[in-house]
């Protein structure tokens, strides 16, 4: 019997992951497709690989925040007139309801064309469950406001960072008398930054999660290691770029600029992969977090403060994202690839590095932010740095609107589904939990 329940919830998690893959993934590769560095087909394949590895390698950190940070499960158990099995049952139904309502909301909004964040949907849904199950006070509003603040801060931080990065690229490479010569010197600096962000994000927490219990693998060592890797990447790129741009500095500036953009082409492909990687790492939790909680409660019959995410669940999340991308996301990728006409690789690199850095930092700080919104912030930052022909400011309004709508909508949906679940399934699930707990 519990196998049926777990399978059902796992299918829900898969459905949620499918939604993520269908809606969000295309955005993460936008800079590479938009600057015509890769074809749409290549972008789909690369995004699939990067999302999956991001989800599986770095994915587990946000997971328990979404589940536990917003609503404290121990509060459920300590409520009067509620036994421990009751609380466990409520948690199972609640998490399932949250998962279902977030997925429904996402599906609905992508059908109507609203730019809704997967992260915000699940956060709203979990909060909704908390309010209806254990009252207004059960929601950790401190944590909740921290999360909501991070939604403001992450696009702004992405924008600031992209602004600075793009000004750097502009000032030290593009605006020089001999851009080709300047690129040999300074493009490796950009490569260094990108590699450092990526390896830090992966090694610092991600790989340590996979390769557990290595005593010598301290934080300091991880830092040194990633900086060394980044330095090596920079040196290799310097050698390649020097070879490619040799003798080009005598051409007219406009020709040199073309060659410099060509240098940025492979970099923007890698940096877009980094965004997809960070996206996978950050967003997989939205689908598998609640699932991990349900599986844990059902199989042990207890509520614990912390739940490890089994590897198979991460794999499931990653797989769902890839399926979503393959069945529907490629269409969004097509829209993105053909609509963006004016981004060049140098811009894409700056936006990507900024977005990746912000998302990975937030992931580490256990703050679930929207990758898409961070990237939008980064691109706006480049617009402010006079790097883009035309950037639509109205998008910020759309994002704002989606914040205001998504959280209440997902919350209310979760409340309704939770009540329905309680009504129909409470006794069945309670009996399973009692059986397993005993």
């Amino acid at each position, binding site marked *: 019997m519990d196998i049926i329940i777990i399978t059902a919830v796992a299918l829900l998690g898969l459905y949620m992951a499918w939604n993520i893959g269908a809606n969000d993934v295309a*955005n993460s590769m936008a800079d590479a497709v938009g600057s015509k560095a890769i074809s749409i087909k290549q972008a789909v394949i690369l995004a699939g690989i990067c999302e999956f590895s991001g989800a599986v390698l770095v994915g587990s950190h946000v997971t328990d925040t979404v589940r536990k940070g917003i609503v404290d499960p121990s509060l459920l158990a300590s409520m009067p007139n509620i036994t421990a099995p009751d609380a466990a049952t409520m948690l199972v139904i609640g998490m399932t309801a949250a998962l279902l309502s977030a997925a429904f909301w996402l599906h609905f909004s992508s059908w109507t064309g609203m730019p809704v964040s997967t992260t915000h949907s699940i956060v709203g849904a979990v909060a909704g469950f908390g309010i209806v199950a254990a009252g207004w006070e059960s929601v950790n509003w401190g944590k909740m406001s921290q999360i909501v603040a991070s939604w403001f801060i992450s696009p702004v931080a992405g924008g600031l960072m992209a602004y600075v990065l793009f000004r750097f690229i502009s000032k030290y490479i593009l605006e020089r008398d001999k851009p080709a010569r300047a690129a040999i010197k300074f493009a490796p600096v950009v490569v260094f930054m990108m590699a450092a962000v990526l390896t830090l994000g992966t090694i610092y927490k991600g790989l340590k999660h996979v390769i557990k219990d290595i005593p010598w693998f301290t934080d300091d060592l991880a830092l040194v290691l990633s900086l060394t890797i980044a330095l090596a990447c920079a040196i290799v790129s310097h050698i390649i770029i020097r070879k490619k741009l040799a003798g080009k500095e005598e051409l007219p500036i406009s020709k040199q600029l073309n060659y410099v953009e060509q240098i940025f082409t492979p970099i923007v492909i890698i940096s877009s992969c980094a965004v997809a990687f960070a996206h996978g790492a950050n967003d997989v939790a939205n689908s598998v977090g609640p699932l991990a909680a349900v599986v844990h409660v059902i199989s042990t019959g207890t509520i614990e403060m912390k739940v490890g995410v089994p590897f198979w669940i991460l794999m499931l999340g990653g797989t769902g994202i890839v399926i979503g991308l393959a069945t529907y996301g490629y269409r969004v990728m097509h829209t993105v690839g053909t*609509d963006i*006409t004016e981004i060049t690789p140098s811009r894409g690199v700056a936006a990507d590095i900024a977005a990746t850095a912000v998302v990975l930092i937030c992931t580490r700080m256990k703050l679930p932010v929207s990758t898409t*919104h961070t990237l939008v912030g980064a691109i706006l930052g480049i617009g402010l740095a*006079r*790097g*883009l*022909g035309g950037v*639509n400011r109205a*998008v910020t309004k759309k994002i704002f609107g989606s914040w205001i709508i998504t959280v209440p909508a997902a919350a209310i949906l979760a409340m309704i589904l939770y009540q329905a679940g309680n009504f129909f399934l409470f006794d069945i699930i309670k009996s399973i939990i009692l059986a397993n707990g005993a």
Partner: protein
Amino acid sequence: MSLISDLFGKSPFGPLVEHSKTVHECVELIQPLLEALIREDYEEIHFLQDKISELEYQADCIKHEVREQLSKRYFMPVDKIELERFVRRQDKVADMVQDFAVILMIRNTKLHPSLHDQFFAFINQIFQVTGLLLNAAVEFQNLAEVSFSGAEARVVLSLLQGIGEEEWKADRLARTLSKSIYKLEGEEETLNIIFYEKMLLALGNIANQAENAGDILRTILVQQ
């Protein structure tokens, strides 16, 4: 559908370069027009006039396209108002070519042989002016690439610095040509002389408008 693709407005710089090229295609038809006039091939003049009219219409369409992309909702790397002024001026160049063609078309004027060389020299000088403008304007994409500053911007600026001098030379040629035209008093039909002067003015306007457009582009670059 996708937030990111919503974010990007079309950049006006691609169409802007296209506009410059189309306008210059108009300018390039001045020489064949003058040659046809000398051959007294009025059919050819009609044909060329139609062609110019069509190109002028095309330029007009592109101008509107550029304007639409200068919507308030978009961040631009340059002043939208200046950009709008620039494209309007550049469009005027095509208008003036059209005016010149119409003058040749409405009456079968014969060009006095003594004026041939001077007219050719004059349009040649006008090409110097419009050519400089074209060379600068086709760099718009690259200028956007460097955010309208730095070395590339300086290169375009130095191109534009020559435009005033070339226009001044054109003015001087216009004056001598004007004198030669009035010297024909008594020798040539008065109506012909009036038409020569009309041609001269129309051609002079082309160079003037090109210079104005170049000045606006300079302002855009200097502001950055």
